[in-house]
């Protein structure tokens, strides 16, 4: 039985005629409310993951649970299908178990707070916020074990429960959950921040209703959804064909030596509707890289990509959902069966965006971006300092943004919305470490007319013994280039001991012991290049050499030769470009450049990466 919503006033909302101005005013007011939600969380949360890096996602939905403003689309209808209890005025829901909300959140670390907004006995809206908790207990600090065999190893799971019941805060419940965490103070503060943010948004919804009337508010949210439906219907009918197109990409490994894992999506249009079918995606992993992909979330990703690629002026909300049919095979990497482990879902989440980009752009290469949105690299470092105090760092890294139709991909920037890096002086002040290097790694961005963004070479020097964990991908299969652009460089992790000896570390690993003075070189992937590198202006290449973003040797990938002083050697450049042209097969360059291919990567994996190639998954 689905959730029961108890409304003391059962009168239906009256449909009101709306003028376009009211519509825009309410839309803007809701957007402002969303900005306020972010501001509240950033100012009061404590874990660097949320307060410095912005790993949290606000949402305001209509009374039926459809997102009006937010980022990842609404899961509320899914939650209501699964939740077994009643919901009434004064309640607030808290949850973290992906299996209890059809994957609305996708690992236990994300805590979600959901607040129904009642007015005069009727539900008028929902506000919600979820954010990544640094630690929720479980077998490893950070609660994202790379080798978990089931979700029971991944920290505390919170089923949908009422954290506030008819206005009464359930302190005992919260105390029990906090007791599971290695960092209870951060969790408590972050949870407070999420709650405060939902309340701020609810207050704004109330003010809008007060000003315009509840009926007008509800009619407006309907109209905003309808407006988006119309705009997307137009976009879908004009830019998606009826003939199926497919695209596939890979996760490198699962943290237990298996890989790569294929994700495949096929898209076609049937009348006014688009079908997105993940048939052909590999079965679920025995480890924790599974990504329980919520269909609505994927609809939203699809919608946002359509909008960004084809017409950035359209606002996005859930209105277009009926136009998109998402099919995900049961038991696959994207819809694993309970109790499959899920904590490392970030890699597949990132890869989904490469797939969308490739899928939507392949018929219109002028709109196509290269690959690079490939993961969300994490570093965990924890232990007891010399005063006996526990410290625990969870940090998100960034790689190179892909080469784009617009231009070069920025170096070391975030592909996730609103994320930022942590100031290194902050890290050094509050954690026992020193950041010896924080720079864009030259040549790691794929060559192209528009260069892929360089990855970051960040060197941590640990000043206390402890353990680290690493989560990254794109170390085995490089991020692809497009329209003649070259793939970006792969990720690498190197541990350098004080005596200078170096050891290559896996890109997914837990419980690596480090000593005082050890250095970790945490190197992320570059973005793929866009367009033929031989068409890049040699002056730009020469300038980037002076800027330390491309090396003299790397300039040759663009067919550019520099003199000793760094000037362009015109004759040698022409000769080299002619030579590269001559060596190419006849005809245009392929739209996608995936690099040397799986067979080559397997054969040369150890030599090129320092790590054995993963075993093909069963």
């Amino acid at each position: 039985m689905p959730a029961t919503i108890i409304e003391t006033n059962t009168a239906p909302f009256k449909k009101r005629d709306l003028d376009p101005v009211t519509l825009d005013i309410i839309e803007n007011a809701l957007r402002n409310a969303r900005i306020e939600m972010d501001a509240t969380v950033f100012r009061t949360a404590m874990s660097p993951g949320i307060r410095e890096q912005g790993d949290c996602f606000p949402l305001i939905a209509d009374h039926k649970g459809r997102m009006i403003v937010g980022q990842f689309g609404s899961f509320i209808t899914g939650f209501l299908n699964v939740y077994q209890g009643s919901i009434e005025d004064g309640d607030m829901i808290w949850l973290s178990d992906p299996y209890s909300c059809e994957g609305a959140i996708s690992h236990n670390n994300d805590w979600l707070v959901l607040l129904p907004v009642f007015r005069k006995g009727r539900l008028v809206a929902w506000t919600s916020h979820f954010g990544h908790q640094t630690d929720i207990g479980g077998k490893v600090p950070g609660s994202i074990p790379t080798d978990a065999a089931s979700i029971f190893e991944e920290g505390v799971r919170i089923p949908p429960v009422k954290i506030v019941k008819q206005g009464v805060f359930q302190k005992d419940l919260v105390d029990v959950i906090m007791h599971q965490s290695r960092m209870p103070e951060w969790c408590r503060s972050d949870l407070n921040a999420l709650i405060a943010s939902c309340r701020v948004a609810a207050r704004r919804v109330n003010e809008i209703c007060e000003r315009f009337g509840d009926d007008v508010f509800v009619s407006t949210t309907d109209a905003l959804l309808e407006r988006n439906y119309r705009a997307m219907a137009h976009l879908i009918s004009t830019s998606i064909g009826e003939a199926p197109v497919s695209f596939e990409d890979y996760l490198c490994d699962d943290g237990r030596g298996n890989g790569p894992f294929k994700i495949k999506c096929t898209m076609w249009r049937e009348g006014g509707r688009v079908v997105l079918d993940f048939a052909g995606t590999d079965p679920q992993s025995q480890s924790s890289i599974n990504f329980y992909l919520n269909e609505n979330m994927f609809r939203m990703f699809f919608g946002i990509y359509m909008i960004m690629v084809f017409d950035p002026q359209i606002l996005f909300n859930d209105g277009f959902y009926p136009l998109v049919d998402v099919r995900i095979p049961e038991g696959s990497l994207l819809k694993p069966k309970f109790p499959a482990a899920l904590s490392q879902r970030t890699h597949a989440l990132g890869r989904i965006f490469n797939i969308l980009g490739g899928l939507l752009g392949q018929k219109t290469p002028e709109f196509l971006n290269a690959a690079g949105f490939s993961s969300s690299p994490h570093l965990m470092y924890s232990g007891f300092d010399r005063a006996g105090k526990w410290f625990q760092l969870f940090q998100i890294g960034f790689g190179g943004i892909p080469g784009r139709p617009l231009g070069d991909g920025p170096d070391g920037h975030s592909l996730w919305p609103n994320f930022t890096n942590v100031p290194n002086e902050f890290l050094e002040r509050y954690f026992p470490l020193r950041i010896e290097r924080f720079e864009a790694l030259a040549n790691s961005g794929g060559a192209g007319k528009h260069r892929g963004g360089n990855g970051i070479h960040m060197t941590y020097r640990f000043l206390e013994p402890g353990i680290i964990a690493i989560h990254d991908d794109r170390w085995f299969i490089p991020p692809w280039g497009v329209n003649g652009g070259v793939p970006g460089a792969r990720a690498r992790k190197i541990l350098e001991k004080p005596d200078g000896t170096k050891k290559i570390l896996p890109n997914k690993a837990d419980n690596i012991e480090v000593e005082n003075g050890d250095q970790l070189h945490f190197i992320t992937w570059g973005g793929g290049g866009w367009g033929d590198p031989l068409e890049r202006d040699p002056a730009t290449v020469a300038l980037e050499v002076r800027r330390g973003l491309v090396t003299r040797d790397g300039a040759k990938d663009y067919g550019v030769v520099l003199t000793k002083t760094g000037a362009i050697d015109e004759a040698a450049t022409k000769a080299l470009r002619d030579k590269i042209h001559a060596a190419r097969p006849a005809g245009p360059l392929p739209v996608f450049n995936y690099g040397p291919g799986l067979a080559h990567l397997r054969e040369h994996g150890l030599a090129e990466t320092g790590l054995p190639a993963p075993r093909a998954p069963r």
Partner: protein
Amino acid sequence: MTYRLGVDVGGTFTDLLIIDEATGRTFRDKVPSTPQDPSIAVIEGARKICSDNGIKPEQIGLFLHGTTVATNAVLEGKIARVGLLVTEGYRHTLQIARSFVPGGLAGWIIWPKPEPLAPLECTIEAPERMAADGTTVRALDEAVLRERLQALKDSESIEALTICLINAYVNDAHEIRAADIAREIFPDIPITISSAILPEMQEYERTLTTVANSAVRPTVARYVNNLAGELGKWGMTGNLSLLRSDGGLQSAKKSQEAPVNLLMSGPAGGVAGAVWVANTAGFPNILTLDMGGTSTDVALIENGAARLRRDTSVGHLTVRASSLDVKTVGAGGGSMAYVPELTKALRVGPQSAGAMPGPACYGRGGATATVTDANVVLGYLPENLLGGSFKLDREEAKRAVQKIADALGISLMDAAAGIINIVNENMFGALRLVSVQQGYDPRDFALMPFGGAGPLHGNALARLMGSWPVVVPPSPGVLCAYGDATTRIRVEHQRSFNRSITKTSDAEVSRLLNEMSDKVSGDLEQESVPRSEQTLSLEIDVRYIGQAFEVPLTAQFADFQNGTGLEKLRAAFNTEHERLFTFNLDVEHELVNIRVIALGKPAHVKPEPIAKGDGNPKAARLRDHQMWINGRSHDAAIYQRSLLRAGDIIPGPAIVCEMDSTTVILDGNVARVDAFGNILLSEQ
């Protein structure tokens, strides 16, 4: 007899105000601005206002100046080529920035990344390292540094040099030494170290702020030097001071060294002027609305003081320098209305018709409907502006707005009203950011609209905000010069403290305060303010340990001397945190930064009373008029502001015209003229 002369340079006019320091009497004037070299209008205007009023240049004791020279240098990219010296391993600090990409999910696809403010090819690394506790990890290798600086000099041409080393906010020894060495190699260019500009944690923000300082330094220095030279030639012997972004004043010399403090000098003048009017009119709590042609600045004034923020934003650039908390939205008289094909929504701005061709009603070939056109169509802006010298073309305005009406399928008047409602909503959003979002109830505030277009929209916004009365100051178009002339010289000194409340003591804080007070007082003495005329105040930024943002709190020196300072600070923080965020935590408090501020003496300026009337404004009534409000036409009247008397009462709907602005009074509202000529609109 000595005078203060305030000069504010705007896009169209340069406004001047002289105040007799003994009596508070004022003289006002305005001359056309000279954008190619703003100092020309400044000097010409100063000569004119003085000679017109029989004042000799040597009688000007203080020359106070708000300028957008630094702002425009950034916006127009007319900045110096800055060399940058960073710690080894950090060459790409400005390139990677905070890794932030605006625009939401997939926003990266369409984001044009700005270039670093200091070119990477001019960025080199210093062989050295300080630890976070201020100890030296690796001594500065001076020989290698010299080689690298020399190589930079040989290969690149730079106009300024910035030095920003990791953890220099704790220990500046390496920065100071590196600057000494750099001065030998680059004897002719300005060199700035980060610990002098912003001794605060966060390497990217500190680097950017220091580089921004270097980038505008040559332009500002040239301007200030030139101005000081011209004023000297004219015979002025008084001090030249510039208005800072935080509303304080700083000397010409300091302005040349730290021009990053001047980036928001322009908007600060308006807010400072509003503060003065607010205090003299008896409204200590005010929301300001400074609406011009392309944008609107809003700010919140509480207890007679504007709120401060710890950063300053100009275009893409956000630096860590204090500024008045002014929010800007791209909504002004010239904002253009349009209806996108796909969504059929009505949008207004942020694109502006600018001065050329301008709104359609200017008759200079503009065909796109703007906010000004909608105001003309609705009858809010009479066709004769600026005393008859400038006529608005109502038919052109109608033609332009009709296009919007057709696209939306609604009537002309509904379209015009829609444009006004949307632009009001945009400004409403900005006003909410400075009020509701900061935990303030706008109903506790009066609203002060100024700038050319503010008084047209003030009444409607007060209705949205519930902020009454609306206070329209005299000459709302030239309020900035009042700000320049009435603010005080300001010096502040800040230290990163970063200690939990249990790991320090009142005595320790008190010792530090004495040291800091001595420094700011000395600095202010350098600015020619004797200690006897100084006022010192104290601010401490506090947070729960682990939070990223601090809450700035004012505190009293004496409390720390008598041992109650920390306890009072803790209580004040809890109150403020609860007000802002609805909750408190059982977590220790951390004192993050300590700031001591020294102010010079305030100007002796009184507002001038106007003649008293009998309450009936008929002497000022120009003619009958029609205004479109709430879906129908209303009989209204037009009044001339200069003929209004104190005590006059004007019922809405009505319009009050003056040379530089037009005030709209809606039906159901009423205007009263106070003793100083302010128009106070209230609900009826």
